[in-house]
């Protein structure tokens, strides 16, 4: 067994008996980006023993951003991601607003919120039903768990009245790629939601109307009408989708007792908050705690089910970028300290994004040493002196969890209660008003991450309804300014906190001589897909997969790894920002002379 495991905190969890078989999946498909998952599986115990997550692409944004005009930052950083580029553009604009000391007119904020709500509605929709959904479709279930398919045929869907599918098998059939009825319907819905996005931000995926200081969108009555009409169709659609997914996911717990352990890990969730309230947000660092708490998704860190903080200043200062198993040189003591203290006087760590220096060092992939282009972001918990491998849960579960516990949000259509989040969807053409309640689940696992995604689609629609009303009030009152002029200062720092669709997103910016001196974006997937850090702590995918029992009926010869796929995809992996799974035909380690995948590990 390789040293890397015995040294790690994870080692104690690893079952050590039986024959371990190497299994890898690279690339993992039906995600955006290049992810590989390399595992050792104990088929006797039907458990994953070890897992390594690797990414095979490096581009170097934080390097080529240097010395550029800071006003170009959002145009460039949008291109980090081809599915949530607008989340980057928005986050960059937030960071620039702080650096330039400006506040956009309220209507601009409502327009950005509407764009972001449309983005959540689109992206969760297409990911859930055209990408994740395939893991639960007829073809896949027949191939991996014929027994479950038999049961699905006989199981009536409890909410058949609301969604129209009589049995669970009917739902699964409908999810078959391209041919399934619901699959094709959701593709259409994903197009309609992207049109909503284009109405607010010009085009998708890299928006064209966002600027520091506001938006270029001309706020005509027409764009809000065009948005609202489509939104109400989406609201009607969600009244079918929430009960449909509840039926599908509940069925898995019932059909496969113990399924709650798939993709389960300790509850370590991070959410950086989303949707600014223009009545409170002034983008100053000094007031960041106060306006952060007014967001319509509350920022927060949840550890073992308890809310540690909702303060964006605490969140900011706790971020650490660790190396360990990635292809970079440590900037350690030689790196320049760009920001010694934050604007409130608090010390800023060397390993904070403001002070990071990125030095790529391409090298061979070696699972005993370095094996990925992803670094290891951690959140330093000063209470316990731990570098927590927070995950984003793919976004929604962390968002809903933090918002529910914080118990602050109440905007009519969505309301936090302390242990749940209520979502009210008004009457639509063919359906009555409906209320959905997302309750804090017992586990942070694959099924609950997926379920939260569905509820957050409804949540985003609720926020969009509210923002659309607020925007129209301003337009009706003739308050149609959408841009605040500004000057780029000689020296400044800024940070933006936002939720990309799949979780936490921050941008940290340092300006000197009106140019970018340092810029480090931290998208959600590096938080989830990272490798073992310098302390040996595995990244969240690695940790979640390492704990996973296997329910697939196929043995090693025909093994698809469906439970592993479900565990990983539940996090909504998206690695233009870093990860690949490869199925390495099943090799018994003891008899192996290391031809392929886990080279380095199997040497010893």
């Amino acid at each position, binding site marked *: 067994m390789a040293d890397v495991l015995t040294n790690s905190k994870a080692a104690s969890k690893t079952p050590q008996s039986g024959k371990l078989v190497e299994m890898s*999946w690279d690339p993992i498909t039906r995600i955006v980006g290049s992810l590989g998952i390399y595992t050792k599986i104990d088929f006797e115990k039907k458990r994953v023993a070890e897992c390594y997550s690797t990414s095979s692409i490096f581009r170097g944004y934080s390097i080529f951003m240097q010395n550029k005009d800071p*006003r170009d930052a959002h145009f460039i950083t949008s291109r980090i991601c081809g599915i949530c580029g607008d989340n980057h553009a928005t986050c960059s604009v937030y960071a620039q607003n702080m650096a330039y000391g400006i506040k956009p007119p309220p209507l601009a904020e409502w327009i950005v919120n509407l764009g972001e709500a449309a983005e959540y509605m689109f992206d969760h929709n297409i990911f859930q039903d055209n990408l994740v959904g395939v893991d639960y479709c007829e073809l896949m279930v027949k191939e991996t768990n014929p027994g479950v398919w038999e049961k699905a045929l006989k199981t009536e869907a409890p909410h058949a009245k609301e969604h129209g599918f009589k049995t669970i098998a009917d739902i699964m059939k409908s999810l078959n790629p391209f041919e399934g009825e619901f699959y094709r319907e959701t593709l259409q819905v994903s197009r309609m939601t992207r049109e909503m996005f284009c109405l607010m931000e010009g085009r998708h995926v890299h928006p064209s109307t966002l600027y520091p200081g506001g938006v*270029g969108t001309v706020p005509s009555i027409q764009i809000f009408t065009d948005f609202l009409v489509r939104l109400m169709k989406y609201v009607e659609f969600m009244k079918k989708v929430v009960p449909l997914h509840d039926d599908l996911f509940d069925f898995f717990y019932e059909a496969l007792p113990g399924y709650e352990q798939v993709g389960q890990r300790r509850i370590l969730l991070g959410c950086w908050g989303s949707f600014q309230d223009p009545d409170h947000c002034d983008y100053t660092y000094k007031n960041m705690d106060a306006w952060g708490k007014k967001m319509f998704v509350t920022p927060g860190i949840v550890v073992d089910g308890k809310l540690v903080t909702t303060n964006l200043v605490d969140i900011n200062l706790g971020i650490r970028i660790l190396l360990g198993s990635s292809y970079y040189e440590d900037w350690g003591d030689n790196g320049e300290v760009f920001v010694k203290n934050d604007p409130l006087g608090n010390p800023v760590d060397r390993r904070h994004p403001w002070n990071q220096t990125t030095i790529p060092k391409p090298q061979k992939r070696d699972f005993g040493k370095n094996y990925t282009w992803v670094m290891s972001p951690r959140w330093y918990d000063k209470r316990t002196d731990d570098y927590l491998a927070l995950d984003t849960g793919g976004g929604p579960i962390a968002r809903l969890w933090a918002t529910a516990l914080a118990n602050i949000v109440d905007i009519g259509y969505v309301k936090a209660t302390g242990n749940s989040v209520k979502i009210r969807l008004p009457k639509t053409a063919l359906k009555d008003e409906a209320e959905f309640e997302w309750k804090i689940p017992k586990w942070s696992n694959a099924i609950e991450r997926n379920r939260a995604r569905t509820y957050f689609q409804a949540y985003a629609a609720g926020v969009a309804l509210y923002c659309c009303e607020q925007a129209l009030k301003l337009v009706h009152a003739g308050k149609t300014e959408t841009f605040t002029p500004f000057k780029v200062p000689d020296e400044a720092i800024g940070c933006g906190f936002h939720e990309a669709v799949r979780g936490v997103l921050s941008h940290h910016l340092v300006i000197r001589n009106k140019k970018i001196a340092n810029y480090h974006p931290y998208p959600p997937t590096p938080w989830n897909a990272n490798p073992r850090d310098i302390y040996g702590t595995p990244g969240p995918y690695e940790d979640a997969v390492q704990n996973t029992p296997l329910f697939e009926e196929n043995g090693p010869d025909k093994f698809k790894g469906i439970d592993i796929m479900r565990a990983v995809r539940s996090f909504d992996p998206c690695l233009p920002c870093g990860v690949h799974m490869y199925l390495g035909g099943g090799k018994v380690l003891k008899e192996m002379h290391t031809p392929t995948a886990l080279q380095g590990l199997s040497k010893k």
Partner: protein
Amino acid sequence: MKISTVPVQADYKPAVKEIHVLWMTTGLGCDGDSVSVTAASLPSIEDVVLGAIPGLPKVHLHNPVLAYEVGDDFMKWWHLAAEGKLEPFVLVLEGSVPNEKIKSEGYWAAMGTDAKTGQPITTNEWVDRLAPKATAIVCAGTCATYGGIHAMEGNPTGAMGLADYLGWNWKSKAGLPIVNVPGCPVQPDNMMETLLYLLYQVAGLAPIIPLDDQLRPTWLFGKTVHEGCDRAGYYEQGDFAHEYGSPKCLVKIGCWGPVVNCNVTKRGWMDGVGGCPNVGGICIGCTMPGFPDKFMPFMDAPPGSAVSSFASGIYGGIIRSLRSITNRTVNKEPKWRHAHAELTTGYDPKYYGDGSTK
């Protein structure tokens, strides 16, 4: 069941029965072009995959964002193609091609694992293996076509477009040059329409695809943003925006529309909705070989625009004031529309009885 003897496309037997589309997303990119293509509706992916358009061969799409298969099951198609056992196929590349020669080991971009070495197979190796075997190669998006964002000044990977890597005169074994569909990301229907054209060509239903010297389809990129822009009329009248959020011409605040080859203003982004300057976005030239460096800083006026917008300011100012006079006139109804007792429209009534005599 045939109802007529007139030959129609629906009866046509394409030159090849089946074709594979191998869509690689492992250039240095963001997968935005794959995501963009799921937004296409003219045609949509499902239209093409499910055979909703007559005359086409059966299309097998292998794209990692949409694939049913994972890992080796997915990579199987790439290995078959490299061995010459997948015939015919179109290779689509997304993302720029890194320069793997500038370092001693490791990789910038890779897909799959080499069974012999246990190391990742680089994107460049895949291009080297597949290019000689492909019927056609299409570059989706500005990264693959010309290098794009990841090839900007100061980049550490030496990234470039595919034509820079394979050579601008490269031809497929079928005699086709590389087909470039630029855009950051590619406009959804532009990409699907180009693929559809190539499928028609492979099927024997269309002549060789017309391309300009930057290898772009001429019917999509022959005009400028400005020529299709909602706001071009403001430019013509010398009426310029000085702040974002204005409905006027955006040239003075950073729009490069007059010199950028792109149809987004005419076509919109999705089914006519959106499209940068129409909505309020400056054109930053994202379809162009010079993108991004030659357009930065984006939010400043293009250097050449000062002269032309000055000229347009004078000429357009006069035109605008003359037009506003006419505009006032045509905004008034003709005087004969009224509720008075006499008819003043110019019609000469003969049978209106006593009250209508002249």
